[in-house]
């Protein structure tokens, strides 16, 4: 088990460094940061001095070495645009993204699972069929389009909900939350549904398929023969057994939701990390871009590592395969 862990951990570090290298070599294609940092009247000499100060004239491997060395101790440098440490910026924006992502995941779970169960049980019902066709929309329409449609419908035509922003937020220590004010909650509705829609339909379809399979198994038939109530069979026995793959997917999707949040955040001007990333790309704020990409890959790598460990724990055969050579 121990060697398995070490092995996986090393692999994760290699993945992180690879991501850093790829990201870093892509940055030079984004443009020149200097032009966004100075005005049109700034002389060539001043621009050159700034470039020198930022270390942009150093060769690539040296720049990369400095980046890795500092990143290893959590120092991502200073944002070119905001002129404050990147870690502060990310910490300031993280609550908005986390709140949005968590609410979206909760929404997709608590709406997606019941919908999946319902469509599995009443396969040919009218409501099931409409759920299924609606879910196609959720899977196939791009997020930004759904967001704009929502804004147009609920913000402009009906005027029920705000079109952008986070509303009023309350600070609790370093965390800021919109859940404690009415305007904050109202602001959360549209973006969280927009973000949740894809996961929601995914979970619904997954639960439905799993459910259909389980409902055909012998033990369900046996339960029926015993005369258990439909409710007990469907929720007590069938659903429980479908949840294992669903939970795995939800875990893996959490990372995706945070990454997907970029588009939702841009459409709704949600002041989270995704918005920060998009703005940084536009202004070629390399330290912020690098830190964001590293953070997202760290999240993905950690989730995968965790899943691997859990699997290994559940099924010891994996450990032997991974740890020995005759796998």
């Amino acid at each position, binding site marked *: 088990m121990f060697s398995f862990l070490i092995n996986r951990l090393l692999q994760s570090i290699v993945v992180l460094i690879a991501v850093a290298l790829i990201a870093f070599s892509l940055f030079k294609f984004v443009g020149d940061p200097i032009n966004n940092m100075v005005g049109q009247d700034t002389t060539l000499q001043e621009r050159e001095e700034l470039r020198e100060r930022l270390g942009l004239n150093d060769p690539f491997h040296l720049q990369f070495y400095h980046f890795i060395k500092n990143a290893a101790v959590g120092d991502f440098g200073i944002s070119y645009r905001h*002129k404050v440490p990147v870690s502060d910026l990310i910490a300031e924006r993280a609550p908005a993204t986390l709140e949005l992502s968590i609410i979206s995941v909760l929404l997709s779970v608590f709406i997606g699972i019941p919908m999946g169960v319902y469509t599995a049980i009443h396969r040919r019902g009218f409501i099931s069929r409409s759920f299924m066709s609606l879910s196609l929309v959720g899977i196939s329409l791009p997020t930004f389009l759904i967001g704009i449609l929502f804004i147009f419908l609920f913000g402009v035509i009906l005027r029920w909900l705000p079109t952008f922003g986070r509303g009023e937020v309350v600070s609790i220590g370093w965390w800021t939350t919109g859940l404690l004010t009415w305007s904050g909650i109202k602001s959360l509705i549209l973006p969280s549904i927009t973000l949740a829609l894809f996961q929601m339909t995914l979970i619904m379809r997954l639960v439905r398929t799993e459910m259909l399979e389980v409902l055909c198994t012998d033990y369900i038939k046996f339960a029926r023969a015993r005369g258990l109530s439909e409710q007990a069979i469907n929720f007590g026995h069938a659903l429980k057994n479908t949840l294992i793959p669903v939970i795995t997917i939800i875990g893996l999707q959490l990372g995706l939701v945070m990454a997907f949040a970029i588009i939702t955040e841009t459409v709704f001007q949600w002041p989270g990390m995704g918005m920060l990333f998009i703005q940084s790309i536009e202004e070629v704020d390399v330290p912020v871009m690098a830190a964001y990409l590293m953070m997202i890959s760290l999240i993905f790598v950690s989730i995968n590592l965790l899943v691997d460990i859990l699997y290994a724990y559940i099924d010891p055969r994996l450990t032997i395969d991974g740890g020995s050579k005759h796998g």
Partner: protein
Amino acid sequence: MSMIKKILTTSIMTGMILGASAVSANTLKFAFQGDAQSFDPHGLNETFTLGFLSNVYEGLTMLDKDIKVVPGLATSWEVTSPTTIVFKLRPGVKFHNGNSFNADDVIFSWQRTLSEGSDQKVRGMMVKDIKKIDDLTIEVHTDGPQPLMPSEWAWVFMMDKEWAEEHGAINAANVKEKNANGYTLNHANGTGPFEVVSRQPDVKTVFKRTANHWNKITTNITDVIFTPVKQAATRTAALISGELDMVYPIPVQDWKRLDSEEGVSAIRGPEARTIFLGMDQSRDELLYSNIKGKNPLKDIRVRKAMAHALHLDLIKKKIMRGASTPTGLMIAPQVNGFNPDYNTPYKYDPAMSKKLLAEAGYPDGFEITIDCPNNRYVNDEKICQAVASMMAKVGIKMKVLAQPKSKYFGKILAQNNYDTSMYLLGWTPGSMDVHNVLLGLISCQNKETKAGLFNLGNYCNKRVDELQKLVGVETDPVKRQTYIDEAMKIVKDEVGYLPLHQQPLSWGISDKFQINQRADNVFDFRYVVKK
């Protein structure tokens, strides 16, 4: 019964609304597509940033609603010798923290513009030394005559020396110093009509009207809330839904929609920004063309052919929705030095273009690539595509390379050795004076004197260079204008550039407010009135 109920509820509601408006202040909520790139008053010399800050900070001079230079924190100034200007400072001016404004603050602010993190060094370096005569009189010494210094200094904001020292902000905020002098990035203390209540970069900035401002100003607004909104569609939606009172810019294609909605309108006017095409006239062989061994753009007949192939009215009609102002000059009417006599665009005459091309030895035209931004100016990429199809009609095959501004500027500017054969650029002189354009765009490139930094194609005429220098130091307005006219005529006759148009300003506003649209696209709170 129901009637009575209706009347009752209506009157209660009216009462509530009236009560609310009597208690609540006049708040203006507005959005721009991005945030000020630096909140430090000397951090970035860029129009939106400086315009945004000009509600909080003021300079010795300032710009009024027609962008004319008027006295600001100086009541008057006098040129006492060719290299000396004496400023009388305004008495009784207070910073937001209550400190008085005086000569020491001017000297401090000037020195701060020369600090490492400052982007106002060019304006700071116009001055050699400032001597304090008394608390409200200063003597500014310059190396040579600097008649433009007072108007340029409308953008040099005055800071309180004591406040800056107290908060470790004696130098402009610098990207390389960790955790040092970052105070000015979220805090401000100026003399302007509005003070900053809170600021979170990229998210929200709250202003309130300061008590006892020295100047009589029109506005009845007491609070201003600014939120950047990046997506144009979201901005427009927020304006229509009433969440925001003013947003800009509005995409030209959304004008119709705004006009058809109740309670909001799009206000548009000509911006002082001139959009033009530049051509590489210095290399012996173009970087991006199929003609090898020579540079067709060095031939005046080819440049003329291009000029006559441009159908500016068509661009105006089809791409700018009738809202651009076709131009023949490199400066807009709002810019000091503008002379309408020279503003007629080149005539649209494709037959002549073809003839000129044949004369120059290119009867079948040639190929060339034009560099173009796609997120910097109003419909920039579409303009380039239109130009390409107009050129195609006379035989020039133009390829459009449109890129986001970061990539675009990174490619074509000086630090990348002007890597372009032809390009589209827009320019508003920060000083609103023609000299800025003559120096930066029209003078020959010169690394030592820093002239022609943005003359990317290096159009070069020695006489124009001389005239530029004369315009820079001449104080007699009549003589100065003759120099300007001569320079502009030469550029035009030689087709140094291909001016296209002044692009439209495009602001969306709620009908509850009245504002003044400044031609430099600066939103000045001083002229906002809630009806």
